[in-house]
């Protein structure tokens, strides 16, 4: 079994993240098998699309329990885009449809839609400015740009979860961490050299586990 597993929840473009990991000498395996995911040394959890659909599909495919096990075992987990949002409790996206589907609730907080008046989705390159020191952002320029494409953002209940902020009308949380549980709103696999460096840093976090 490979040490790093990329979770295939059926929604994301996994080819780019797989190739980006290979590019930085991580050697991942793509899997939708809850047993393999729960047993992995580290996990990347990508996702695009709708919170609701994804949360439901995760439950049906028994991925929820597998990912909660990864979280409980304090193994490195990197949620990307919707994958990061799904680490949270609930999203306005599902509240809107009066069909409140819960996320993993691994980090307490909400997923909110950008307010009216801002062009949505927030698409393009923006800065993610680290609010403190974290090995995920090691070696990156403080004004490094990353590629974003999303209509919702996360609002953690506590500031201490926020790893980086991005300005879009107001500063929103674009990276979170709680121990080994990490999430980024942007797409490192589409963020050029900065994104590859970030993935490589995640690889170091994995290597530092004993």
């Amino acid at each position, binding site marked *: 079994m490979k040490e790093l597993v990329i979770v295939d929840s059926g929604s994301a473009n996994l080819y780019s993240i797989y190739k980006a990991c290979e590019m930085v000498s991580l050697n991942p395996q793509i899997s939708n098998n809850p047993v393999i995911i729960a047993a992995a040394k580290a996990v990347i959890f990508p996702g*695009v699309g709708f919170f609701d659909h994804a949360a439901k599909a995760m439950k049906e495919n028994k991925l929820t329990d597998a990912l909660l096990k990864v979280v409980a075992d304090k193994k490195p987990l990197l949620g990307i885009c919707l994958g990061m949002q799904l680490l949270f409790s609930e999203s306005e996206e599902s509240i809107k449809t009066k069909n409140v589907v819960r996320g993993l609730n691994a980090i307490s907080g909400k997923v909110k839609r950008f307010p009216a008046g801002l062009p949505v989705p927030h*698409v393009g390159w923006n800065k993610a400015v680290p609010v403190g020191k974290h090995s995920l952002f090691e070696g990156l320029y403080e004004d490094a740009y990353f590629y974003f494409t999303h209509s919702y953002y996360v609002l953690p209940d506590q500031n201490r979860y926020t790893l980086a902020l991005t300005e*879009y009308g107001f500063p929103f949380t674009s990276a979170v961490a709680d121990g080994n549980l990490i999430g980024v709103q942007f797409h490192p696999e*589409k963020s050029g050299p900065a994104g590859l460096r970030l993935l490589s840093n995640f690889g170091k976090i994995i290597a530092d586990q004993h």
Partner: protein
Amino acid sequence: MLAKRIIPCLDVRDGRVVKGTRFVNIRDAGDPVERAAFYNSEGADEIVFLDITASVEGRRAIIDVVRKTAEVVFIPLTVGGGIDSTLFMQELLQSGADKVSLNTAALKNPGLLKEGAEQFGSQCIVAAIDACRVDKTVQNDTLKWEVYSHGGRKATGRDLIEWVKEVEDMGAGEILLTSMDADGTLDGYDTEMLAAVTDAVDIPVIASGGAGTLEHLYDALTKGNAHAVLAASILHYGTFTITEIKDYLASKGLPVRPANK
């Protein structure tokens, strides 16, 4: 703040790039993968492949191009040209494309934008629009533009401003707007058209057609309020490099992503 994006557009036919000659640093200027990698190394913010292949069989080649590009280029890839089903969209997205752009097929069936947005998310769906000015005298001096289909060959009778609002309602996440009047002239983008469109919708608008100088790019992003500029000739013929473009825009105070940061 969002950086203004510089997006090279490559016309691809049967899996080969058909425009541009002056490339000193690459072996095969006709290889879309090598060209995309070259622009990526120069600091392009995104790559657009426009597939102008006529035959249905030939179109399969674009999937291979996307797959090979996604193996070496880690910035967003958009593919347009002849996309007329969600199945084809899915194939392209699974091969490593991040967005698909729809033009004629969306005009024939606007519901296709909606289906694509519902299935893959709005962020994947780009509405590509070709438009032309309508004679001012006919319209009592108010500016109007008409939408064209089939690569600009067929007038549709649709008003541009109505159409951009419709594509936004249908779930398109971005608009790629080409001025047929300006395209190929090197005289500058139609900034009035851009301003009218960026005013009418909330979704990002990519300006296309007419870039000849660095000021033209600046004008599209400021007067026209575009979020991004698509550039073909000025890049393919080596008039400017992406680094020169970005340095210029940064010197004028616009936010750009520095190359290789």
